[in-house]
């Protein structure tokens, strides 16, 4: 009989400009792992062979653009595997290289402030994992990596060394699994699961065996393997891979500790003055060992965003940078440095201008924070008096405290998946009650919407034995799996109900697409309530039940649903991708999948109107809700609530107070009338008309007796005032625009006056800032005289010829030719006088303070 399994083969040329980095590798490994057959990939250029099922191995094969590669598949289901891999290579691989849609953050243009550029000092860039600015003397913490001497001892017989490695892997695995079983936050469990996956990676095991076979002792083998893979991962510039590189180092360190039975931890360092601690790796215990008041910043070579050290640093508000290239070589012990983790850099040369810049910067940040807090702690009410609740999305009870600190009015989405995934058994009732009770306690009377578990084929919960699906988003997940797993959902309902006696809890059902699902759910709730009554356990009998609007069909049975549920929460991420039939994880269509699609906006409007007609409540908890650019649309929709990542709350609340609900409604109508799918940016930026305008002039934009010493400092100072007032979010972009104008010719108009100005997308409303200097500064003026009074005007990009503010500025320009106007400004001693004088002359209304 023909016994030999012929391997199936095919070749292809790597089409990826950046080579085979983590994303294509993990996508390919995911395909290969669906099959039993062995899949190996040979790089025909270098001859290196990779296991197609191992991400590490695929990356390590160093496949570059243009490399010819050969796939060999052999085993039981080789035909199917080969076909699937072929399909992947032909259809999906080319798209793997497209840049991921940027996760929306509060990021600015990433430009350096002009002061730093002009200072001519070197800035060393890293990745910021905990924001803030810290100044202090460098203290290099001891090396954590296994000392070299330990590895000079010769290896025992290789099987003994192999046994040691296997034992260490098992021990580390057991430890991580034990940690996963404890209550940990989502971020923590994510990193732990990644570690487990890496420990199980077949190529790591092979590499270790190979090194041991070469005669290395176990600890050296672990170290070498760690270095080998982290180097491979580090090749790429992608943040994702860099993080994995740190992970594998972390992991190998743990293995080495296990093998040697020691902690590679130097004696604790004593801090006695403001200190920036520079280290390769820092353990959580080490971090906690420092005296907090002297620890101003951390610069770490190796730490993942999800590492415990970083989680701690961030919760302690310690500015932290990682991956600063050669940090320990550049930053010398005893040297004073500034770590600017807002911009992701370290400045090691503290020249006087640098010091001045940061002294001012810290002051600005303090003022900005207190200004934002004034807005965020109260309710967010539009200029014309409509309230929009701003709630937070969280994934663990611990996240409630910072969310409320940032001004969350409630918790609009408490995800519970973290309780279920990445473990071998389902969470017990007691475990869950404890979590929900903590949430209720932290909420202190504010409402918490708990979403029952939304698990499907894409989330690892082995005890559910969910089949792997080719299209989990359209598959067996959310409420759909509840009938089969009634024990699980009943336990969760019992737990939530029990906790409901101690706070304002509400329940939210995920992935509803029909009325039957709601009816069964309510039936279970009723049964569990009866049980509890029978056992005389307290619960909130009137606890509201709501559903997620994620599946488009729901929008067409709202009348029926309104009769059955108390509230609705629109999950825009899924709703949009189902509605437009565009997978948001598919880079090729993701850019087309826009919540600004007029069809989608009309759809949302219909939903909100229907729900309100029935007198029910509707919120939104998807990404769209947190996008400040979309806010006018959301206000225009008339939502009752938006629920967002906590860090977005202050800025959103501030913006709400500036919007007029009526103007937003008009804006919404205009968007709905759009014929074409436009990038929401275009629509929003062209006609962002809905701000209840802040006054052009304002007391907080008047600065007297300023100590600035140069034109640059003056301009920055006024821009900082605009930032504190919430009129710009990108000071560097604004600064650049002002200086670009300045470069055509000086705005120093003579008589000691300068009027820098620009039109830019960096400001959210037209603004005039006025600054009077204590000592005149050079401005390269028309009459060669230094400048004493500076009036800066920034107009929005969208300002048109008809803009009345441009006319005001033209008027101001003319006024400056009037000696009397200038003299009055020069002699004015307080901000109110300056403001009223300018406003009167320009025919503007302003509010002054007593």
């Amino acid at each position, binding site marked *: 009989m023909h016994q030999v399994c012929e391997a199936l083969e095919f070749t292809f040329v790597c089409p990826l400009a950046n080579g085979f980095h983590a994303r294509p590798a993990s996508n390919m490994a995911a395909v290969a792992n669906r099959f039993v057959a062995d899949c190996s990939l040979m790089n025909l250029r270098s001859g290196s062979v990779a296991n197609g099922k191992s991400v590490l191995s695929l990356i390590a094969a160093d496949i570059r653009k243009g490399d010819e590669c050969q796939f060999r598949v052999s085993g039981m289901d080789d035909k199917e595997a080969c076909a699937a891999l072929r399909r992947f290579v032909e259809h999906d691989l080319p798209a793997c290289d497209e840049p991921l849609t940027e996760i929306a953050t509060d990021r600015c243009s990433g430009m350096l402030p002009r002061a730093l550029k002009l200072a001519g000092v070197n800035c060393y860039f890293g990745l910021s994992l905990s924001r803030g600015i810290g100044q202090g003397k460098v203290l290099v913490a001891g090396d954590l990596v296994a000392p070299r001497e330990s590895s000079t001892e010769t290896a025992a017989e290789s099987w003994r060394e192999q046994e040691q490695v296997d034992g260490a892997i098992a021990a580390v695995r057991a430890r991580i699994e034990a940690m996963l079983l404890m209550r940990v936050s989502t971020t923590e469990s994510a990193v732990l699961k990644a570690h487990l996956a890496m420990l199980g990676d077949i190529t790591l095991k092979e590499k270790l065996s190979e090194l041991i076979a070469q005669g290395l002792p176990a600890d050296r083998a672990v170290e070498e393997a760690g270095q080998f893979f982290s180097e491979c991962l580090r090749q790429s510039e992608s943040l994702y891979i860099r993080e994995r590189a740190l992970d594998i180092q972390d992991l190998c360190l743990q293995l080495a500790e296990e093998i040697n039975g020691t902690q590679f931890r130097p004696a604790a360092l004593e801090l006695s003055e403001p200190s920036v601690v520079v280290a390769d790796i820092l353990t959580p215990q080490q971090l906690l060992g420092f005296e907090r008041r002297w620890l101003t910043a951390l610069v770490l070579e190796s730490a993942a965003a999800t590492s415990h050290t970083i989680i701690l640093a961030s919760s302690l508000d310690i500015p932290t940078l990682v991956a600063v290239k050669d940090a320990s070589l550049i930053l010398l012990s005893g040297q004073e440095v500034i770590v600017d983790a807002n911009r992701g850099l370290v400045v090691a040369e503290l020249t006087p201008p640098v010091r001045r810049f940061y002294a001012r910067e810290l002051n600005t940040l303090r003022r900005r924070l207190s200004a934002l807090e004034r807005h965020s702690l109260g309710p967010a009410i539009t200029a014309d008096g409509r309230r929009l609740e701003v709630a937070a999305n969280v994934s663990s009870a611990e996240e409630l405290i910072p969310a409320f600190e940032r001004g969350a009015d409630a918790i609009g989405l408490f995800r519970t998946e973290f309780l279920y995934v990445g473990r071998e058994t389902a969470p017990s009732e007691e475990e869950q009650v404890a979590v929900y009770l903590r949430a209720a306690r932290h909420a202190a009377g504010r409402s918490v919407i708990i979403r029952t578990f939304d698990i499907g084929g894409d989330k690892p919960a082995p005890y559910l034995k969910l089949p792997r699906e080719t299209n989990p988003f359209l598959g067996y997940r959310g409420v759909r799996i509840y009938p089969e797993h009634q024990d699980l959902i009943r336990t969760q309902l019992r737990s939530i109900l029990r906790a409901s006696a101690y706070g304002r809890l509400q329940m939210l059902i995920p992935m509803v697409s029909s009325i039957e699902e709601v009816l069964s759910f309510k039936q279970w709730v009723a049964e569990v309530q009866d049980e509890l009554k029978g056992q005389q356990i307290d619960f909130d009998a009137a606890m509201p039940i709501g559903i997620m609007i994620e599946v488009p069909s729901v929008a067409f049975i709202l009348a029926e649903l309104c009769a059955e549920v108390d509230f609705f929460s629109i999950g825009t991420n899924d709703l949009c991708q189902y509605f437009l039939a565009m997978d948001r994880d598919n880079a090729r269509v993701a850019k087309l999948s826009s919540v600004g699609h007029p069809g989608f906006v009309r759809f949302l409007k219909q939903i909100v109107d229907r729900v309100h007609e029935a007198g029910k409540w509707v919120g939104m908890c998807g990404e769209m809700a947190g996008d400040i650019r979309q806010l006018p649309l959301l206000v225009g929709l008339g939502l009752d609530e938006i629920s967002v990542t906590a860090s977005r709350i202050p800025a959103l609340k501030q913006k709400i107070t500036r919007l007029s609900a009526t103007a937003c409604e008009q804006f919404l109508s205009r968007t709905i009338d759009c014929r074409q799918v436009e990038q929401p940016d275009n629509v929003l930026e062209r006609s962002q008309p809905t701000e209840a305008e802040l006054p052009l002039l304002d007391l907080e934009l008047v600065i007297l007796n300023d100590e600035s010493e140069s034109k640059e400092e003056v301009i920055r100072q006024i821009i900082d005032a605009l930032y504190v007032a919430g009129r710009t979010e990108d000071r560097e972009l604004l600064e650049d625009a002002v200086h670009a104008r300045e470069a*055509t010719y000086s705005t120093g*108009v*003579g008589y000691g006056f300068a009027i820098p*100005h620009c039109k830019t997308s960096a400001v959210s409303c037209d603004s005039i800032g006025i600054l009077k200097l204590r000592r005149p500064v050079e401005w390269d003026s028309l009459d060669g005289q230094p400048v004493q009074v500076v009036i800066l005007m920034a107009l929005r990009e969208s300002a048109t010829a*008809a803009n009345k503010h*441009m006319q005001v*500025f*033209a008027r101001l*320009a003319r006024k400056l*030719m009037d000696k009397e106007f200038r003299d009055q400004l020069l002699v004015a001693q307080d901000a109110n006088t300056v403001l009223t004088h300018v406003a009167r002359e320009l025919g503007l209304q302003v509010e002054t303070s007593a």
Partner: protein
Amino acid sequence: MRIVAVTACPTGIAHTYMAAEQLEKTARALGHDIKVETQGAMGIENELSDSDIRQAQVAIFAVDIEVEKRERFHDVKIIQVPVQEAIKNPVGIFQKVQG
């Protein structure tokens, strides 16, 4: 003297108007009759009509960019200076006009 003038600067937000103001003020002080058209970011304002131009003995262009609708001025003597000159030394410009 009857004078018409056009002011225009690259951004058209500030200098255009300062120059216009200076020319108007100085002309009044020197006893001239002047009408100044501004060509700024808000477009042409205080536009000079053909009859304004016909009646003028001289046209002052205080501009750093091309004058729009320049063909209107084909029959009149033109004195062109940079915008900044009009702001800094308007009197000097009128001396040139008379000279």
